């Protein structure tokens, strides 16, 4: 350590001054990105801030400042500072924890802030045994060493809690490492494996499927390695018109066959806050797109299950299902905004007058015709917008978060506590002096110490 501490670079990165400087710098530069809108087209900065300012913004990548070279460099120096300042201090902590506290001169016990002497009866050996047993009974297992005027006993707890602050430091590094592992930039530019970690999106119309997505920013196509299908999409509303649920029913297909998902079924109800993860890739309900086409589903109930026809149709077009000898069309529609409320259906089996009627969107109708009974459902076609993420670093981040909370708790609320007891003869009578210290929460430790000593006094009375 001594040789290393002479290296000025090492000293620079180990210093707390650097840490304070970095915290101030990170805090104050972070403000910029909350005031200047991020990731806007270049023209907008020119319009908003003028030619010169916009030039500066581009030069310093302030339009994407949290990914800019200088901000990442700050985070890099911050990481180095954390590592080196921890490495610099941990040996000293180990020295403190391993310290042989039995070398303490018993005289010092009388000068400690917390100490208390108690006179005992009987032999010194019995007194030592009594103190040892009592402390062990209270959870303080002692070691002892004979001193000139009697044995010194020592016990400590929570030495490891001195590492609390370093647990926090390591937790920050773990989170940053997780962020790097999960970064699509890192996967693309360093690993050259864009499918290792990515964020992207895809629009999938109902009844359609996809086996790729488009990455954010680059717009590159990324293969999923399997197929995802959107079976159904709907929006539910509250009475006051606020959206209540965005729901996509999705399936995952491998070799063309739907596979069972985590819930054991082949269909997952994808909602906001209820994503679907398959093979490390997670799908989120993020947007939707209504179309002017319709999904039609007609079943001839007399001829059984086999005679179900699904198809997509636009308004004003007619379709025919020759095997059942039926024709169908949508001749009018009623919309609210972009959402179709109901449609006017034209339906015939080429026997008698066609059936013409209004039907609510996505509601089943039963049509009695001379040729038999048909059920019919017409639904406005939607595409569901999925955000698709593969982030192999997220568990590092979560582990780091857990470590951080644990480390903060240890660093702030747990302490390294030490108890000494020295048994000696005072005027020919065995006497024990207890002393104690803690590196943190001294008030709390004082209570523990007082209770411990009082308890011993009590036990001697009996």
């Amino acid at each position, binding site marked *: 350590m001594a040789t290393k501490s002479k290296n000025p670079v090492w000293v620079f990165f180990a210093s707390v001054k650097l840490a304070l400087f970095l915290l101030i710098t990170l*805090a104050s530069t972070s403000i910029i990105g909350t005031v200047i809108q991020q990731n806007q087209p270049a023209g907008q900065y020119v319009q908003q801030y003028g030619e010169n300012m916009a030039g500066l913004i581009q030069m310093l990548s302030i339009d994407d400042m949290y990914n800019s070279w200088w901000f990442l460099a700050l985070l890099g120096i911050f990481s180095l500072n954390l590592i080196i300042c921890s490495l610099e201090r941990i040996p000293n902590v180990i020295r403190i924890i391993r310290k042989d506290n039995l070398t303490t001169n018993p005289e010092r016990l009388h000068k400690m802030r917390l100490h208390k002497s108690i006179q005992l009866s009987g032999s010194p050996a019995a007194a030592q045994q009594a103190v040892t047993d009592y402390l062990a009974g209270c959870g303080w297992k002692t070691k002892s060493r004979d001193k000139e005027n009697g044995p010194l006993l020592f016990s400590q707890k929570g030495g490891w809690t001195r590492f609390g602050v370093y647990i926090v430091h390591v937790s920050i590094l773990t989170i940053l490492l997780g962020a790097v592992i999960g970064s699509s930039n890192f996967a693309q530019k360093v690993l050259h494996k864009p499918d290792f970690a990515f964020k992207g999106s895809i629009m999938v119309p109902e009844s359609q499927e996809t086996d790729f997505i488009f990455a954010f920013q680059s717009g590159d196509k990324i293969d999923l390695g399997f197929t995802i299908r959107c079976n159904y999409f709907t929006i539910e509303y509250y009475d006051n018109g606020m959206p209540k649920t*965005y729901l996509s029913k999705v399936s995952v297909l491998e070799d063309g066959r739907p596979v069972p998902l985590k819930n054991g079924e082949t269909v997952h109800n994808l909602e906001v806050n209820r994503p679907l993860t398959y093979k490390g890739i997670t799908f989120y309900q993020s947007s939707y797109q209504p179309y002017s086409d319709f999904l039609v589903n007609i079943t001839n109930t007399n001829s059984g299950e086999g005679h179900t026809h699904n198809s997509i149709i636009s308004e004003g077009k007619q379709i025919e299902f020759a095997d059942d000898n039926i024709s169908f069309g949508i001749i009018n529609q009623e919309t609210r905004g972009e959402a179709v409320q109901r449609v006017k259906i034209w339906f015939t089996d080429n026997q008698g007058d066609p059936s013409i009627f209004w039907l609510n969107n996505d509601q089943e109708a039963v049509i009695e015709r001379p040729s038999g009974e048909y059920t019919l459902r017409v639904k406005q076609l939607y595409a569901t917008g999925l*955000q698709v993420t593969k982030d192999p670093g997220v568990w590092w981040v979560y582990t780091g978060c857990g470590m951080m909370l644990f480390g903060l708790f240890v660093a702030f609320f747990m302490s390294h506590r030490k108890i000494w007891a020295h048994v000696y003869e005072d005027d020919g009578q065995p006497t024990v002096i207890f002393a104690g210290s803690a590196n943190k929460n001294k008030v709390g430790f004082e209570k523990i110490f007082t209770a411990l000593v009082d308890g011993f006094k009590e036990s001697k009375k009996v």
Partner: protein
Amino acid sequence: MNSSQLFGITTLTYLLSSAFYIGLLIFKNKKIGLIGLGLAIFGATALTAALGLRWYESYQLGIGHAPLTNMYESLVFFAWCTTLFYIFLEFKFKIRVVGAFVMPFAFTAMAYASFAKGINQQINPLIPALQSNWLIAHVMTCFIGYAAFAVAGGLGLMYLLKKSAVNRGLAENSLTGGLPELKIIDDLTHKTIIFGFMWLTAGIITGAVWANEAWGTYWSWDPKETWSIITWFVYALTLHARFTRGWSGSRIAWLAIIGFISVFFTYFGVNFLLSGLHSYGSS
């Protein structure tokens, strides 16, 4: 009795409590302080009932959810956390006069929630993004942190007032004479910041986990997220300055105040001045 009546009673009680605590500061009469505390406890009880009732009322409307979903509810919850945290401090550390620096915060939050323009008091159903169990965990952890930082800010202010009085050699019977000793205020500020820092950290983490669950990214540098990390940096700086450089006294008091300004901006400024993912918090 409905929840809005109870909210009104609370607002009035907090005003009276603030007045009595300030009275304690001026007249140094213990009885006045005791009334201030009694009013604070009564107000907090009424507010607890009001929050519970509002929660219940939301179920009556068929849109049941915890009352933590818009600016009105969050202000009220902030007032609730701050008062409870302060009452706890008063019982633990026996420093009654601090109420004069804390209860006005709680009253202001209640009054602003009730009377400010553009704050919607209606119980609205939850939009899909907010329909998550993380909602309660995230809002609670954040606001316990905010409450502690509000108290720390009040303590910092108190420290600086006392300090300037001491420096000018003002006598014990002046306005600041009734304040606790500088060392005690300093220690309490530090403890409060530690407590708040734990909860702020937990609040940021629950927010990150939730964001990952809802949007597929645990951190997107949205202004609210960024300001929360700025606040975290400010308090991390404060703790390091104290632990490793031995800072205390006025410098820590200033940092407690700067920290609270940052908290205030995270909570308020972001919603009103900047745009981002947290927009549902602004009405």
